């Protein structure tokens, strides 16, 4: 069976029909010869049916939320409502151009205005820019805001950002991108920020502190007030990596408890689809004093007439996206929030937390869990028992889960937990589905003892068997060798 779309190519075959030309002309007469490509790009020549067969076949080789539980910790793989998909495909959403006259965009601008407001309310922030297109870009924008704030106040020495060693990789990477030096703070034994150690590293050079809360261990950083006081003490700013907002909504407004800036991941907390890796949306929210630094434009209104507001252009960090960010994703989040309302939002949080604690309880007898306390919306177990006892790694456990129809948890993160298994069931899973996931985890714990070979060979039932990552790096086969005609 042909495996690559290129293998299906047959000279002259067409996948689409295009209008007949109603204007005469010849490209060679219109454009200077030297600019004309010498050799055609060998895109595949296939029929529409070929394309459908090929990509539908590929689709059947994926795990996805509607196939089974997807407990990828930190990623909040909740159900993506189908009504969102239906509504955003309206022609008045997908066929609008960013430079249309404002009069023809009032529906869109009104939605964005409301979304800014709703996200501000949920986060307790003064204002939100919807522009960053991913969490990492939200971080970057946030760090640029920190820089702009300090620049505005005349600081020249604020070159460092502190973050805990449990932080997600994007945090230090964003710091570097924004020109900051990273101070990595070792976590306390209870998995939280070590406030005493923090005191030691807080100096005038510190521009800010980046924290995930609940942190990547699924634990709420209860001393956030102390932390923010310390940072604010040197006129630093406290940044919340909002990846875990699914544990806070309706219960805590980060902007009210010491955080100055946060980013949202609409593709996590607000149910927009992950899309196989994106597009997401990473709005950034700030407290009042930082509003002037937000990216341009914001959406504002006077007397019910909505417009793109560039008025803070001078103080703004500028832009992180060509236009206004991932609008199609914002629409989905907007619909989601409107359908939840205040009660629903809080309910999401409660159920996410209950589900996580319930699952933790079920598997706790079989897997080591470093931090023995109630978790928030996710928890980190690990495979150290299995490793020590039977030489079974977390990778083996993850692969075996695939055989049982589940996606694996996030593995080997956070880095401070050996053999980490970071589990986030989300609120859209039912008790029954969590029960069956727990059963699978428990079976695997049994299999570790009885048939460790089974785990080392896992997965057995997937479209391909265990994939050799190292080989991929060795041979670096990153494009298909197309036959030139």
């Amino acid at each position, binding site marked *: 069976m042909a495996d690559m779309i290129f293998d299906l190519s047959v000279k002259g075959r*067409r996948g689409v029909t295009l209008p007949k030309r*109603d204007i005469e002309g010849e490209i060679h007469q219109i454009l200077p010869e030297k600019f004309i490509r010498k050799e055609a790009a060998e895109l595949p020549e296939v029929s529409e049916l070929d394309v459908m067969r090929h990509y539908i076949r590929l689709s059947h080789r994926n795990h996805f*939320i509607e196939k089974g539980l997807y407990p990828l910790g930190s990623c909040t793989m909740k159900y993506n409502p189908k009504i969102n998909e239906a509504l955003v495909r309206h022609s008045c959403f997908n066929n609008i151009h960013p430079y249309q006259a404002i009069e023809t965009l009032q529906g869109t601008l009104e939605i964005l205005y409301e979304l800014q407001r709703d996200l501000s309310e949920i986060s307790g922030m003064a204002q939100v820019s919807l522009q960053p297109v991913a969490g990492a870009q939200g971080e970057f924008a946030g760090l640029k805001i920190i820089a702009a704030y300090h620049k505005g106040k005349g600081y020249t020495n604020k070159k460092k950002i502190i973050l805990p060693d449990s932080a997600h990789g994007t945090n230090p990477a964003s710091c570097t991108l924004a020109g900051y030096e990273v101070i990595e703070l070792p976590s306390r034994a209870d998995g939280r920020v070590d406030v005493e150690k923090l005191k030691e590293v807080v100096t005038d050079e510190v521009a800010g502190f980046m924290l995930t809360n609940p942190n990547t261990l699924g634990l709420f950083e209860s001393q956030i007030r102390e932390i923010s006081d310390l940072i604010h003490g040197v006129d630093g700013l406290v940044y919340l990596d909002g990846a875990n907002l699914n544990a806070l909504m309706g219960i805590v407004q980060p902007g009210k408890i010491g955080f100055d800036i946060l980013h949202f991941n609409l593709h996590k907390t607000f149910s927009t689809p992950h899309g196989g890796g994106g597009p997401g949306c990473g709005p950034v929210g700030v407290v009042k004093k930082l509003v002037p630094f937000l990216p341009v434009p914001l959406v504002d209104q006077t007397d019910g007439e909505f417009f793109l507001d560039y008025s803070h252009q001078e103080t703004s960090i500028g832009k*992180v996206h060509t236009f206004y960010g991932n609008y199609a994703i914002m629409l989905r989040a907007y619909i989601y929030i409107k359908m939840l309302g205040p009660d*629903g939002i809080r309910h999401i949080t409660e159920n996410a937390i209950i589900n996580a*604690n319930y699952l933790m309880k079920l598997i706790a007898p079989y897997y080591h869990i470093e931090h023995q306390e*109630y978790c928030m919306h996710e928890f980190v177990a690990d495979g150290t028992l299995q490793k020590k006892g039977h030489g079974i790694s977390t990778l083996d456990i993850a692969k075996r889960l695939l055989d049982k129809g589940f996606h694996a948890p996030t593995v080997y993160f956070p880095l401070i937990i050996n053999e980490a298994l970071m589990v986030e069931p989300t609120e859209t899973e039912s008790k029954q589905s969590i029960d069956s996931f727990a059963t699978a985890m428990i079976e695997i714990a049994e299999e570790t003892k009885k048939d460790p070979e089974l785990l080392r060979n896992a997965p057995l039932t997937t479209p391909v068997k265990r994939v050799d990552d190292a080989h991929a790096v060795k041979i670096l086969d990153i494009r298909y060798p197309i036959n030139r005609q």
Partner: protein
Amino acid sequence: MPYIANTDADRQQMLEAIGVKSFEDLIRAIPVELRVKGDLDLDPALSEIEITRLIHEKTCKNICTQAANSFLGAGVYDHFVPAAVDTIISRPEFFTAYTPYQAEVSQGTLQYIYEFQTMICELTGMEIANASMYDGASAIAEAILMAVRKNRLKKAILPESIHPEYVKVIRCYTEGIGIELITAPCAYGVIDPDALEGLMNETVGSVIIQTPNFWGNMEDVFALEPIVHSNGKTLLIAAVDPISLAVLNAPAEYKADIVVGEGQAMGNSMYFGGPLFGFFASKLDMARQMPGRIVGGTVDHEGKRAFALTLQAREQHIRRDKATSNICSNQALCALAATVWMSLMGREGIREIAIQSTIKAHYLADRIKALDGYSLAYPTAPFFKEFVVNTPIPAAKIIQRLLPRALYPGVDMARFGNDRQLMIAVTEKKNKKDMDALVETLVEVKNG
């Protein structure tokens, strides 16, 4: 409650199993004084019936380009997206999956990315491409940063002919980390080669050439390339419209080192300018400096062909502050749309799209420049599918007057400093009647 599976009874059972009395017991770690008092100030919940009505009301306040005759472009183009594209990208198998971390259950995603990389290489003539960037603007910014990683030279030359919105993003990405951006002046709508030559020296890390440039004009890459490469260090970053590559030179032909661009035009609807997606390709010697995800072919334990994320040691989740980029989530589904689109178009279809866009744009330009009071802003520059027109009255006035007819004549260049210019884009979707309608109304509004 929408989307919450558990019933009250489930919750009760679960709390009991956990060993707590109530939910409150689970969040003891959150000090009470940090908690929200009362309800959030949000609109009350709407059911699916109600949200459908609300959204219907909102859509009625927009006038989309399907109901209008639009010549807007400037980075987001209304090229044809076959319905078959959405059939694929709307499959939950693709859109509810995440980054293919577990390769064994992500072969679908991994393979299409591999195919995407191949197609981008094919279009650009490059050797390696990644799995997508946020947009064309940030792709240029990341290209500049990659050039710095490669040659350690922290100066980049940005000609005036680069999209001003891109420049804003590039500034944001490069400010404050010691990178100096130098503006190269243009003449007659393209980079002035003499001026560029004057700016060049051994400290310049990269020169960015956008072609077709912001105004739609084709830069004279064959004249510019030797200037850029004269010192043997400076890297040439080409920013290109992928559709143009069907007929215009593959950047490899003019020895570009890094090729980036905005990919939206390939299979993605305009959506008010987002999501967009950047493509990013280069020569193989920069493979380990690339930002973003890369998929590679490999084998499974039985030796069967398979795909996996590769060169991950560049990425933030492994290298953290030393990573080549902070990018994590990217624009994968847009890349899928582009992959399906390129497959549907194929070798000939994409050429036909590029050719029709060019021919039609030139027809329209010819007609407009013949009108009294109108002229081409850059009459000597060859252009692809977009061009700038000098207008006899402020462009804003023209736009306003055509609004009631749902005719969007182009982008008001007042945004970019010239209030008597319109930038007009034409795609294969326009027909002669559409264009003639624009020509006629341009005559009318001038007088009206």
